[in-house]
């Protein structure tokens, strides 16, 4: 009898070679390296990661280039008058390093703000790969420099939303009671209002507010004030289940303060859902802001994909390249963050995997 039992036991734990190798490589690896391995295996997730990394690079490079160009122009390092919009150093993005001839810097491409009246509505060509718009601005330059504003809006909007949601959700989940009750009612009310419509309502009402950062700063403030409900609910339920766990109980028995329990134990354990919320949320925020801009509630002076889309949306039938490229980039951004978010969710929480 005993030998048969042993045999069955052996049989049950016999794993195929591939799984064994996988276990061998994962031995001693931290949680994050396991997650990274899982993402690396997911082709769609990697595609999303590449798209996101590419867009972040693009946003950073365009932001830095614009800063450098502004600085060069204003510091009078280049020939030409900084106050004259038609002057050469205002029309192009240039690079210049000390020792170079000031009259002949490296010209990269057209400045997104300056218009060449004789070059309007040109179809995509070698000189203007994305064509030019009605004002004679180079679409490639507009799209390239629009990345920084569009992505920054997504990041800042989602981060503020998540921070507010996490703080309120943690308080409600940890202390419960009346705070939790009030919070739930507030979320109930905020959730009953279609967010897009409420945002438009607020933007119109607060159009005249002047705060540093322009119109989009107002939009972000209100977006995070009304958008934190979802995060708060998830964090709250996470806190509810975690605070009953044995390790929290043990820590409490050792005399740890509430703050220590929250920041050292419960919050780090809620990191996985937070990362998923942030990645998938950025896609949603970029989409919402693009939609707001599309319907004319953006900042017409900003260089962003949504605002360009708004300006040229009615030219889709006659000059399709004008609205098509900003729209394409919004689409790729949302797609990249969705792919990455889905893959992160599968990697961080394999139970959810379908």
């Amino acid at each position, binding site marked *: 009898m005993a030998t048969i039992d042993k045999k069955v036991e052996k049989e049950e734990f016999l794993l195929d070679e591939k799984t064994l190798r996988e276990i061998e490589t994962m031995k001693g690896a931290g949680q994050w390296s396991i997650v990274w391995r899982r993402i690396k295996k997911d082709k769609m997730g990697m595609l999303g990661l590449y798209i996101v990394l590419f867009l972040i690079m693009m946003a950073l490079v365009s932001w830095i280039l614009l800063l450098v160009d502004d600085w060069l122009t204003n510091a009078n390092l280049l020939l030409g008058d900084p106050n004259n919009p038609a002057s050469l150093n205002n029309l192009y993005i240039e690079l210049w390093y000390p020792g170079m001839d000031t009259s002949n810097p490296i010209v990269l491409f057209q400045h997104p703000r300056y218009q060449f009246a004789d070059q309007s509505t040109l179809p995509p060509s070698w000189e203007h790969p994305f064509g030019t718009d009605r004002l004679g601005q180079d679409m490639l330059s507009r799209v390239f420099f629009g990345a920084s504003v569009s992505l920054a809006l997504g990041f800042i909007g989602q981060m503020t939303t998540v921070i507010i949601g996490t703080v309120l959700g943690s308080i409600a989940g940890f202390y419960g009671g009346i705070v939790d009750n009030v919070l739930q009612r507030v979320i109930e009310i905020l959730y009953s209002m*279609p967010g897009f419509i*409420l945002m438009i*309502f607020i933007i119109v009402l607060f*159009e005249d507010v002047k705060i540093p950062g322009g119109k989009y700063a107002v939009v972000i403030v209100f977006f995070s004030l009304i958008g934190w409900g979802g995060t708060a609910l998830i964090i709250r339920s996470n806190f509810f289940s975690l605070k009953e766990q044995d390790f929290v109980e043990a820590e409490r028995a050792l005399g740890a303060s509430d703050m220590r329990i929250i920041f050292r134990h419960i919050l780090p354990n809620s990191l996985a859902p937070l990362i998923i919320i942030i990645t998938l949320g950025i896609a949603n925020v970029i989409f919402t802001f693009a939609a707001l801009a599309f319907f004319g509630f953006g900042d017409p002076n900003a260089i962003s994909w949504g605002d360009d889309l708004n300006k040229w949306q009615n030219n*889709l039938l006659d000059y399709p390249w004008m609205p098509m490229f900003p729209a394409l980039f919004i689409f790729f951004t949302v797609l990249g963050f*969705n792919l990455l978010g889905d893959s992160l969710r599968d990697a961080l929480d394999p139970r959810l995997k*379908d």
Partner: protein
Amino acid sequence: MSLKGYIVKRVIYIVPVMLGITLLNFTLINVSPGDPVLVRLGLLKCETPECYNTAYNKEAIQMGLLNNEMYTVPWFERYVDFVNDLLHFDLGRSWYNTQAGLGIPISQLISERAVYTITLNILSFIFSLLLATAIGVVSATRQNSIWDRSLTVAMLLGYSMPLFWLAKLLMLLSYSLFNFTGVANKDAFKTPLFLNPNFYKYLILPTLALTLGGLVFMARLVRSQLLEILRQDYVTTAKAKGLDNRAVVYKHAFRNGLLPIVTIIGNSLPGLLSGSVMVESVFGWPGLGTLFLEGALFRDYPLMMATNTIFPLLFLIARLLTDITYVFIDPRIKY
């Protein structure tokens, strides 16, 4: 408690939420900078300051900001007034939509326009639900087949496509194929509406866009729910006792998967309503969404206030209906 009692309780529950919503709207209007009277007066040209002041005071009294003795009315009195008017279906007069110099009553505007929004939304909701179910079942039962993969990729692409842009692309496609942009014009809305063939012609593209928008969201959901359930033991049992595949999917798996699907769809209805605003505006469909957007662009405060109360109300009613359908889907639910 009986089903009737449950429904009554849920209907009563709407009241505090609506109060909260109106209070939020009201507070937002009140704390916003700028004087609504100045917005209302707009570019009023007056030769003398007296003329301007009279116009200002008259407007302020009409808006209920000042009483007849020229004292400022406290905000809670105005709020009570507002709610009182709301209960009598008196939503005030529009600033932007005027007829013979006088604003059209908003309740009249809304009752005229609501039929368009409701037709569009119900039609596309039914279509997207049916299509999403079909796509979800096909994907889940043939997991990792070429069908499943291509459908999943298509859904993902659609999910990442902004809805307003999808509507625009549909317009472009239809224009290049049939030379028809689908932008609604007057002869689409001649009465009798539902016997007018033009109405249906102009309904096609907005319905298609809104259907696609809801579909990509729901199909993902149906697929993942169904996949989870097909892995359960009772499905294996059903297969083992020799039931054919169709019966397993529709009788055993799908019914059990419905509940979470209905929950998430019920919660996502505000998103679908927002989508309806976008699609309506792109195709010039004269529903509540277009009314709201026009009002917002021209800073028509009473109209925005009214639509911002109507949309949550529509959503709450829709959610009430989803909650009631639970009872029919799942006999275990106690109410």
